[in-house]
């Protein structure tokens, strides 16, 4: 759900965008006569961008990430032919867990925003008690 990453400060923030041409696969079905980007895909875009901020840290390149919990607020419909700007920041990164925040912006207005928690399981598991 990302076309381009325009700026990354590893461990701090990542920004970029996704263009939304009319022929995106979901527009015909979400919804007929009222196409707009599904909220779950907006959230996915934010989560993927937050992942960029973490996987660009030394030693994290190529590591698999998982979502832990997201709390999202949708503020406006995101329509075809728009540019969906994605901005994320890392609030904390510790022991394989990233707490972060992201916004999806269209035409200068916030379309959605989310508090997100993601993990790199390979790192997290090193800190867990053995069963």
């Amino acid at each position: 759900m990302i076309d381009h990453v325009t700026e990354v400060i590893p461990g701090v923030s990542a920004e970029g965008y996704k263009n939304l041409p009319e022929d995106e696969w979901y527009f015909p079905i979400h919804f007929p006569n009222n196409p707009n980007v599904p909220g779950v895909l907006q959230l996915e875009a934010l989560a993927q961008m937050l992942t960029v901020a973490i996987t660009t840290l030394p030693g994290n390149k190529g590591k698999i990430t998982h979502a832990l919990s997201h709390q999202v607020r949708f503020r406006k419909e995101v329509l075809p032919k728009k540019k969906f700007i994605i901005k994320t920041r890392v609030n904390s990164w510790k022991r394989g867990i990233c707490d972060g925040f992201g916004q999806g912006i269209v035409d200068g207005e916030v379309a959605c925003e989310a508090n997100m928690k993601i993990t790199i399981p390979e790192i997290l598991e090193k800190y867990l008690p053995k069963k």
Partner: protein
Amino acid sequence: MDNKSKYNKVFIECFSVKEKILSKDLKYNSIPQWDSVGHMSMIAALEESFDITLEMDDIIDFSSYNVGKKILKKYKIEIN
């Protein structure tokens, strides 16, 4: 607030449990809330509450409510 109250408060708030559940039987994965993410949240809360940084081995060894008390002794925190 004494150390035991601070210690208990971390468990109560991180795992959303009543104080009566805090016993030798409270262990990693013994309740749904004390999973991998809960473990890291609880460790972070302890570090903030007691102004310490736990070593990696201690985080791994922190497998129960009672074991945690022994581990904190290493950091000069007595919980009676």
